[in-house]
């Protein structure tokens, strides 16, 4: 589980849109995984199982927040996905990319992370997110369109 933790945390940050929420979510997911360890089928992929659990924990959390506050979920405007690493050119670019992706709607952000960063196939990503493959495809199409518009810089941005 330790080996997966950084990736789980990154997924949790992408899901929640915030590093501090990602910290909490990754932690809660680990505890939940321990709780449910007997449900894990040996021979299947632990990372996918934990990613799936992570989403379930997050959706529950959103539901209970909604109940507690009686309001919808706060829009994630905070661009808090990157850390305070030194301002090297590489870091500045990386931070820009992360904030562009973070500005996407949650479902698109999550799909981009699973398919374009983690390298899961549509089918695998669909299983992790517990949605049809067609939905993965339309989320990615939407993400591509938006990101392309922002990132395609005629002055020669990041390519």
């Amino acid at each position, binding site marked *: 589980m330790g080996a997966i933790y950084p990736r789980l945390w990154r997924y949790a940050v992408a899901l929640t849109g915030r590093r501090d929420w990602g910290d909490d979510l*990754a932690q809660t997911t680990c505890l939940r995984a321990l709780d449910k360890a007997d449900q894990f089928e040996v021979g*299947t992929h632990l990372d996918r199982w934990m990613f799936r659990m992570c989403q379930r924990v997050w959706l529950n959390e959103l539901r209970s927040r909604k109940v507690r506050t009686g309001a919808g979920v706060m829009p994630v405007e905070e661009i808090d996905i*990157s850390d305070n690493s030194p301002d090297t050119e590489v870091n500045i670019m990386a931070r820009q*990319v*992360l904030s562009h992706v973070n500005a996407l709607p949650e479902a698109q952000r999550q799909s981009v992370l699973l398919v*374009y960063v983690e390298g899961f196939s549509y089918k695998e990503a669909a299983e992790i997110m517990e949605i049809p493959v067609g939905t993965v495809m339309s989320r990615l199409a939407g993400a591509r369109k938006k990101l392309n518009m922002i990132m395609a810089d005629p002055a020669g941005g990041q390519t």
Partner: protein
Amino acid sequence: MNTPRAFSDEDLTAFLDGEADATLEAEIVAALETDEELGARMAGLELPMDAIKGAFDSMLDTAPAMPALPETASAMPQPA
């Protein structure tokens, strides 16, 4: 009838992601030969994948340590 097939953004996305089935892929490749508008639409969906992957990979180094887990941690399954 030889009406050009209309491709959705999802079709083009699947094509770019290498997830289009053989038929769709062949149709898009053929259409790209003649259909400039399709080429432009495709360009409008392209992303700097290396930059995206690289940016997210740089996050991994900044991940917090895994929290200490309760005793039962030893019962945790190992990665497949």
